[in-house]
């Protein structure tokens, strides 16, 4: 009677042992893990980054691979499920024995995998702008920290060219990135003499789709006579309905400019941008920037993806910079060993797609230029302002009292991600 069940259990046991065995396989290729959601809510943004890594790997192999070996991308789907991110990270590192992982988009996914990377001493490249307040020995942050995006953007809004805003609306999705960014901004704005009465803060749930009331509130707030601007940290899906409402309620950029930190070319691809011309975004990269490296990158991307209409965006550039830095560091170290590569990463330079060079600092954040672009009617951005040189990414914001005390520096004598004094 029990035989069938035994057979069933036996099959289960076999499956488990197969999983175990594959872990022991020796690697004669260099393995690169790709940990981006391909399904669920974040697939909309992350799928592109998976393709970017595949393109970079493909390109590298065509040019002879790395250290004389072929590079193999191991793609998994963490399905926008945060505990699954941790599980998949562990699987990539322990079972597939990848040498490096490119992945994550949301902060929570990064927080979820962080203990795994630290425990197993592996390496993650995180390509998205985020709230800062973190520096892990095992993560390299190639997206923008708040001081590389939010602060320059607000500076621009308050400058004469930006319209001289004196009243600021902080709109955000209710999670840690907008909360922290807005906290930093409020403290910064207060420093600049903007009173709390002239700052409006509003949070909405993820995927918020009905923006009528909030846009009307913004209009009312702006009617007080002072020049008003909106700083948007609205995330992902909620942006399309937000901009559609903005356009339909006739909010013009010259009256109330909206500067966004999470809206790039990819997000605009779903919107008719003609009524939105002049609204702003702050990034380290725009597709429209005319530079040879950028043109080559865009051409390569179009060839790889087989669609000339596909856009490129800032996290793609961050992935590109991260990947090339890792490649250079591996070449310099002569091995993919994590500790050796990490040492080689510091000071590593890669040419930005938009000109200039990005440098990896010892706090695991990049020095990059900051660009502010205006939305154009073709869904692209036109750069209206940029920093003179590069801006060093701050792991710890200077505008939050607890965090201003901390320093991140992973080289001797500090060797620490969050210390007030050097370790040695």
């Amino acid at each position, binding site marked *: 009677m029990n035989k069938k069940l035994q057979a069933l259990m036996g099959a289960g046991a076999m499956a488990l042992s197969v999983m175990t065995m594959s872990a022991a396989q020796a690697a004669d290729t260099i393995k690169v893990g790709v940990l981006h959601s391909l399904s669920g809510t974040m697939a909309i943004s992350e799928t592109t980054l998976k393709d970017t890594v595949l393109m970079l790997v493909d390109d590298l192999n065509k040019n002879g691979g790395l250290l004389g070996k072929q590079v193999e991308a191991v793609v998994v789907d963490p399905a926008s499920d945060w*505990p*699954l991110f941790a*599980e998949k990270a*562990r699987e990539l590192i322990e079972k597939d024995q990848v040498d490096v992982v490119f992945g994550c988009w949301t902060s929570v996914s990064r927080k979820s995998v962080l203990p795994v990377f630290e425990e197993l001493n592996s390496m993650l490249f995180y390509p998205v702008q985020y709230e800062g307040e973190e520096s892990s020995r095992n993560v390299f942050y190639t997206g923008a920290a708040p001081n590389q995006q939010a602060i320059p953007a607000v500076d621009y809004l308050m400058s004469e060219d930006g319209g001289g805003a004196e009243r600021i609306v902080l709109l955000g999705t209710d999670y*840690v990135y907008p909360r922290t960014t807005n906290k930093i901004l409020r403290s910064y704005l207060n420093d600049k003499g903007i009173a709390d009465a002239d700052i409006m803060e509003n949070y909405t749930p993820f995927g918020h789709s009905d923006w009528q009331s909030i846009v009307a509130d913004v209009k009312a707030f702006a009617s007080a006579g002072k020049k008003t601007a909106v700083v948007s940290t609205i995330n992902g899906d909620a942006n399309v309905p937000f901009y559609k409402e903005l356009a339909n309620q006739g909010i013009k950029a010259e009256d109330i400019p909206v500067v966004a930190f999470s809206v790039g070319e990819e997000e605009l691809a779903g919107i008719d941008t003609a009524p939105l011309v002049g609204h702003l975004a702050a990034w380290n990269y725009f597709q429209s920037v005319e530079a040879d490296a950028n043109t080559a990158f865009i051409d390569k991307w179009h060839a790889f993806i087989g669609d000339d209409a596909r856009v490129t965006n800032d996290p793609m550039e961050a992935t590109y910079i991260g990947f090339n830095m890792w490649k250079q560091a591996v070449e310099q170290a002569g091995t993919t060993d994590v500790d050796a590569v990490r040492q080689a990463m510091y000071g590593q330079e890669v040419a930005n797609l938009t000109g200039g060079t990005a440098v990896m600092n010892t706090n695991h954040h990049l020095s990059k230029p900051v660009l502010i672009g205006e939305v154009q009617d073709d869904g692209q951005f036109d750069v209206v302002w940029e920093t003179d040189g590069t801006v060093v990414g701050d792991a710890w914001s200077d505008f939050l009292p607890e965090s201003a005390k*901390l320093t991140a520096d992973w080289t001797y004598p500090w060797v620490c991600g969050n210390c007030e004094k050097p370790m040695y």
Partner: protein
Amino acid sequence: MTDYSQKYKMTPVVGWLLQDRGGMILLAILIAASILIPICSLLLPQSSAFHVPTWMVSLLGKYLCYALLALSVDLIWGFCGILSLGHGAFFALGGYAMGMYLMRQIGDRGVYGNPDLPDFMVFLNWTELPWYWYGFDMFWFAIVMAMFVPGLLAFVFGFLAFRSRVTGVYLSIITQAMTYALLLAFFRNDMGFGGNNGLTDFKDLLGYSLQSDGTRAGLFVASCVFLGLCYIVARGITQSRLGKVLIAIRDAESRVRFTGYRVEYYKLFVFTVSAVMAGIAGALYVPQVGIINPGEFAPALSIEIVIWVAVGGRGTLYGAVLGAFIVNYAKTFFTGVMPDFWLFFLGGLFIAVTLFLPKGVIGAVPAFGSANGQSFLSGVRKRLNAGGKA
């Protein structure tokens, strides 16, 4: 088919367990796993063919927690006809209670070095610990809360709902509304539970580092033990006199009420017990995956739990355990092997199981197909056919 109902009065626990074939196998596997897997993981060298890597231990531990969660849903759905689409809420609350304890255990090892406040509070300029965080530095308190809070919520919710005789899809949808409301609430940073990021970066449990293999094996064994215990409790309930009333409620609620039973009390009892089990599952889950965040409240997760039960076989208890393992293993396997197409397989699996295995995978095994599931399904059919309206 053995008719347990004739014997339940006089046979002690061991007696009815011995007659519960599936349960015996399940318990045997759990005992074997809780002995062998730690040995294979800790004592055998890595080169050994039988060595179980750490990630596998954590993965299996996670499956066990899901299995316990599925068990708790089967207890109410399979035996009392309460289809909860909000059981993830109880699971997550249990998880949060454990997460709060683990958060307090970090102490001054957080990034800002504040001995009392978790990092996310420092970062949002909170100056003191909110009152509802008090006591969570004590393990026993956290464990009690991991059971008490879900139990209390289930009690209050159940009291209101069952008293007003909210049944069927109405109940399912309001349980979904409950977990959705909690999802939104926990997303709010002002709630003091870490918002979207939830609670993470845990260091140790009762002084043992969560990253050590020994602790992982320990948690795995704990998961085995609790799954086994909860299974025995659930089986005990269903085999008891009370269990018979529950099944009667499931099959014909009005008739039971007219017979003079206070239906709502029976439902309330089993709903609360089930929520407590879900809470325990959550508490065991968090240290093994290392994060708890509002995503666990997502209605989609709660629907998925129901699907585990259905895939395994509703109304059997061990079927729920099997279902949780099958679906989650399929998920782990396919997301790694075919990341771009795995949803086709998972979706296809759900459709195929409902169409071809109405009694779940366990129902396809002849030895079990005629067990408890039979009476239940035929009961449902009769009931629905009689009514003519779904």
